[in-house]
């Protein structure tokens, strides 16, 4: 079980959180202009790298806010977390 640092509430146990997948996936600026291939990539393709990964978590049983975490998918090391609107480098 992970300990996850909510940027608003501090470190809490994993069952308090819901996972939200890859972070920083922006909605297409001009959806009408996308080809089928580009839509497929937006809808169905997410990074699946081994190593440091920026991902979203929601503190569902706490403050209920979304935030981002940098975690290593190979080792499960929790590198840090940061608020929506901040950048991965801000993780702590």
């Amino acid at each position, binding site marked *: *079980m*992970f300990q996850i640092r909510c940027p608003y509430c501090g470190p809490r*146990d*994993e*069952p308090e959180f*819901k*996972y939200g*997948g890859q972070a920083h996936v922006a909605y297409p600026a001009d959806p009408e202009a996308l080809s*089928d*291939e580009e*839509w*497929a990539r937006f*809808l*169905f*393709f*997410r990074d*699946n*790298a*081994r190593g440091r*990964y920026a*991902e979203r978590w929601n503190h569902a049983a706490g403050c209920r806010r979304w935030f981002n975490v940098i*975690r290593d*998918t*190979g*080792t*499960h090391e929790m590198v840090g977390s940061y608020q929506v609107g901040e950048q991965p480098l801000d993780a702590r």
Partner: protein
Amino acid sequence: MDPNEHALHNAPFLWRTPEPKSTYGAVIVGGGLHGLATAYYLAKNHGMTDIAVVERGWIGNGNAVRNTTIIRSNYLWDESAAMYEHALKLWEGWTEELDYEILFSQRGVLNLAHNLHDVRESVRRVEANRLNGVDAEWLDADGVKEFCPIVDVSPDARYPVMGATLQRRGGIARHDAVIFALGRACDALGVDIIQGCEVTGIDVHDGRVTGLQTSKGPIAAGKVGLVAAGRTSLLTAMAGFDVPIQSHPLQALVSEVYEQVLNCVVMSNAVHVYVSQAHKGELVMGAGIDAFNSYAQRGGLHVIEEQMSAGMQLFPHFSRARLLRTWGGIVDVCPDASPIVGLTPVENLYVNCGWGTGGFKATPGSGYVMAHTIATGEPHALNRPFSLTRFETGELIDEHGAAAVAH
């Protein structure tokens, strides 16, 4: 020397451990069940024997022997029913064909319904299965009690049982025996099984695959099949394209050994637990995936706890059973809970992945169609719908209801 120990040290090996040749007609990356089954059918059905299976660990170290071994074919859509039913028919002949005791036991699989939605979805699936020639029955709560007496079907249960689907031809098999059987069969057909050989690069020239970089040196290959389950994304990245899978931990557990009390497989999608009892006597229970991405082959204990608490409600008999061991594998989950088997943007490079939480049951069918695809350069009719391009065309095969977490 103790005769048992003597026998152990002098036991004949089931397969050779050759060094890789510099070139092969075809190389299969991944020595799990699907990779070995692919090599087996390439040799047996298509006469290709200049082939190798390269495996970074030892064959069967991955999901092949971490699964809960449930076999069934009662999927909703025509494409899946055809694929999984083909596999089930092959399972029915495999013990004889491979001449190895794989303990394939068609003891029946129950999928419980706990609410009105479950009931409707299950009855619909039973009808769809029958139209596709897949054996399927709907049991009411009394029928469930009769078929599996230790399930708690009392109306005030935490998860009331309103009925279940039953596939009598479903069941379990001994997964490590299947690895042994396939390893021996491949080897006997001339396939080189190369263990401790990690693929670290894929050579692509003019849009065509020409070989592999491995921890045992370069290997040239006319054709390459990627059959690497949870690690597939890492391999396709080496060849310059992506697959829409996410790799998640999936955990399971066994209890200590008990007398036989459970005569069939019982699954419940709604409460995320599935149970059978191994021939030796351990209760084998599986959970849902851990939500996050991972390559670490382990998950959180709270997932196991949740699953056990659901198991306890359904089977009050198990309340004093003791946990022996838990483990995790890394499963390759597709957005529509269906696999990807077929061509890739790279010529002569084929991919077989995305079986996620439920590929054990598909082993023979998966190998069969993958071998056809590699040998002929064209998908078999059964795997044509399971293409990588379906995510662009929108022809998804949404099996979340039949497959999602349960198997």
